[in-house]
């Protein structure tokens, strides 16, 4: 570990632990942040980064451990208190109020007043100064925030942070919504902030960015600090990945199996498009095959999946499942004909979190249980239990609430749902988001087994490596267009990114 501590730390986090409903989100995090530095926090999805941020922002109180601010132990019990200490947070889901103007957003909660009345003129003036400082003097303080692009909303969020007297600003994946030009502006602003002594905690998945803007790196994995204070310029990439994942990633994927030459084309997508979202695509998936859709966030990959499933109504084209043309825009028809989707946002789109596992498992199939439309809970439970056991979900207790399970086990519930339903075509959107590395390998194995049993599978993931590792064949997508279709073993991650960059430029 490289120690570049010269000044006393601005903020120290010591041994912080936090649990939610039996899930240990933070399990001993130690981070020390110096004034004026850009401190990057690296970690996989579900590593505990969000919980850490919320602990610093006063949203969560740690169960154990200490937070030391400018040499004094503090308890940050509310967002207001965090702000008054001088800690501002920019969340990934930008928490600006759409219906208010830029100036009203910036001074929300600490409105400027003059004898009890709002001092609009002063607020407008200061807003203009802040926006100019952030390189966006072109934005009018009176403009309604709802009309702004995500990048400009982020500028507003940042201006709001700067409108207070802050010493530390936490940015949660600020570059996720920005294009490259806007990222440059962001970096310029970050450099200006640090030059004036403000420390920045910068969360991002993009290693290249971290190298460019970061001073030091801390890595957390499964809620634990793996390393802190690493030098952002000299640290080996391979070493960082190993710290993040706990293993070299190469061996996680099960070997692909050759698909029978006469395997039927179970899913035939012909000329499918959604106006303004993605251009017409055509592809087929054979029984036993895994097709991957590779592309960046916003490329249209999830939207294609949704259109195939009927969750988004297609403008043109057809989807045929085993010879039957599916009704456009009807999820029910797709499910009825043997298609299943494990959605991108497992919690908000996939699960009934407060319901027991078995009801989640039987949700798509429960017409099969019991006579007529009467339910037979006993047979529901036993079917669910059998499926959970075969997926090695432990404990296979069908009565537990879905909320209490880990990400990997929640993903297994969704797989179980479609297995019980008897799905022939399975669409998986981000199958391992928020799933830790150990459970990932297990999920990959299950997906491969399903394919081997004759299911046609489409996988979408923001991790290109995952798509390439799992799939037999890959469609590379950028800006709503399919750039190419290649066997997965004939392309690598740089190759995909290269295509995507060129495709976007064209």
């Amino acid at each position, binding site marked *: 570990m490289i120690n570049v501590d010269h000044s006393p730390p601005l903020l120290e986090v010591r041994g912080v632990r936090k*649990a*939610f*409903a*039996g899930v240990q989100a933070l399990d001993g995090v130690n981070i020390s942040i110096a004034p004026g530095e850009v401190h990057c926090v690296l970690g996989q999805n579900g590593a505990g980064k969000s919980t850490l941020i919320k602990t610093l922002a006063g949203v*969560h109180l740690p169960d154990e451990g200490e937070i030391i601010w400018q040499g004094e132990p503090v308890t940050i019990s509310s967002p207001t208190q965090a702000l008054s200490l001088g800690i501002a947070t920019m969340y990934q889901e930008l928490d600006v109020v759409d219906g208010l103007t830029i100036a009203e957003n910036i001074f929300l909660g600490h409105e400027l007043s003059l004898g009890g009345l709002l001092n609009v003129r002063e607020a407008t003036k200061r807003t203009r100064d802040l926006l100019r400082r952030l390189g966006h003097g072109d934005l009018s303080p009176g403009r309604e925030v709802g009309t702004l692009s995500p990048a400009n909303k982020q500028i507003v969020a940042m201006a709001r942070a700067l409108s207070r007297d802050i010493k530390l600003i936490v940015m949660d994946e600020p570059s996720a919504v920005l294009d490259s030009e806007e990222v440059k502006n962001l970096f310029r602003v970050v450099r200006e902030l640090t030059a004036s002594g403000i420390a920045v905690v910068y969360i991002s998945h993009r290693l290249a960015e971290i190298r460019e803007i970061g001073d030091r790196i801390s890595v957390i994995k499964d809620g634990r600090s793996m390393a802190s204070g690493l030098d952002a310029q000299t640290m080996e990439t391979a070493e960082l990945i190993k710290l993040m994942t706990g293993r070299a990633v190469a061996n996680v994927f099960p070997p692909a199996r050759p698909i029978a030459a006469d395997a039927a084309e179970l899913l035939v997508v012909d000329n499918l498009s959604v106006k303004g979202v993605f251009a017409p695509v055509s592809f087929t998936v054979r029984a036993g095959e895994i097709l991957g859709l590779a592309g960046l966030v916003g490329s249209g990959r999830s939207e294609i999946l949704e259109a195939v*499933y009927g*969750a988004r109504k297609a403008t043109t084209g057809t989807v045929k499942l085993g010879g039957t043309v599916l009704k456009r825009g009807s*999820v*029910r028809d*797709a*499910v*009825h004909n043997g298609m299943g*989707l494990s*959605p991108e946002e497992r919690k*908000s*789109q*996939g*699960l*009934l*979190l*407060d*319901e*027991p596992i078995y*009801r989640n498992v039987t*949700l*798509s199939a*429960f*017409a099969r249980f019991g006579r007529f*439309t*009467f*339910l037979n*809970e006993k047979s529901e439970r036993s079917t669910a239990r059998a499926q959970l056991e075969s997926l090695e979900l432990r*404990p296979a*207790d069908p*009565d*537990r*609430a879905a*909320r*209490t399970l880990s990400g990997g086990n929640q993903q297994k519930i969704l797989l179980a*749902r479609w297995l019980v339903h008897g799905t022939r075509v399975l669409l998986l959107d981000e199958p391992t988001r928020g799933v830790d590395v150990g459970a990932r390998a297990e999920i990959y194995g299950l997906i491969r087994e399903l394919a081997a049993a004759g299911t046609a599978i489409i996988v979408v993931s923001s991790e290109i490596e995952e798509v390439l590792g799992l799939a037999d064949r890959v469609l590379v997508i950028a800006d709503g267009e399919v750039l190419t279709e290649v066997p997965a073993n004939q392309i690598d991650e740089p190759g995909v990114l290269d295509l995507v960059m060129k495709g976007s430029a064209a």
Partner: protein
Amino acid sequence: MSEQTTTSSAARPPADSGNAGSGSIVKRILGGSAGRNAGLVIALILLVIIGGATSGDSFLSLNNLLTVLRLASIIGVISIGMTFVIISGGIDLSVGSVLGLTSVVATLAAVQTAATSFWPLMVIIALAVGVFAGIINGVVIAYGNVVAFMATLAMLVAARGVAEILSKRSTQIVNNNEFGDIFGGDLIGVPVLIWMFVLVAVAGWILLNRTTFGRRTVAIGGNREAARLAGINVKRHTVYLYALAGLTAGIAGIMMLGRTTAGTSTHGTLYELDAIAAVVVGGTLLVGGRGSIVGTVLGVLIFATLTNVFTQNNLDTSVQAVAKGLIIVIAVLLQQRFASRGRAH
């Protein structure tokens, strides 16, 4: 009621499922749905004790008991339909005025047509009007993407207006004696109205806890998007739910005709609020995803008993309204505490 423990144990606190074994047994029991019902039973018993202490024999007599139940029965039937709508995450403000409309249409049909001599036609007309109004609500909400509150508020106003136009603001007397004899009468010493409430409640319980219809309702209220992506036709189901609420309003309209032997556009005024109060006090979450028929029935009984205790003691109805308001606030406060226990964060 012990069945309720196993079938609608929606969100168990983590203590219940084996890990993080904190919290006393009392808290655990009160956190479960059976516990919430137990709380309601205790509240009801307390009310009965207060009634018995203040008014003695006249309160505890069988006659008075039947009066309470008879009063409770019409709101009760509406509340059962309302329970389904609220569990699905919706609301139906129109049930009271739809009740009034069904009573007017059914009596007009009886006065002006051959239905005078054939009471089942009155029943069928009342039910059809209720279901029809419910379908309109459901279609506007599901396919028109109008917020349930607004769609049913519009129906509340419109149905009352239609009823006034049809009845010319005059009270229509039911002149079919058979109808009055049946719905105003007794069966085995118990008023028919009470039997109807019992029947609707039992049917509602079965529908909610034992059929795919009920499971879908809970799923839609718990996570609408997940339900849709699991292949449930959420829009169509929404229409069914409001049709069901309309159906209960129609049944309540018949009961009202039986009790008053007259149809008028003012029947059922503000009943929607009493029904919502009973449902929420009964432990059904206003945001949807969790609820119980047993709880709703207990909620209805608590309000009916409260009214009776006040009447027996010749207390002002204004004081009674204040007491009702207090009960609603206390129930919702308790509900939130249990909900946050179940959700952890």
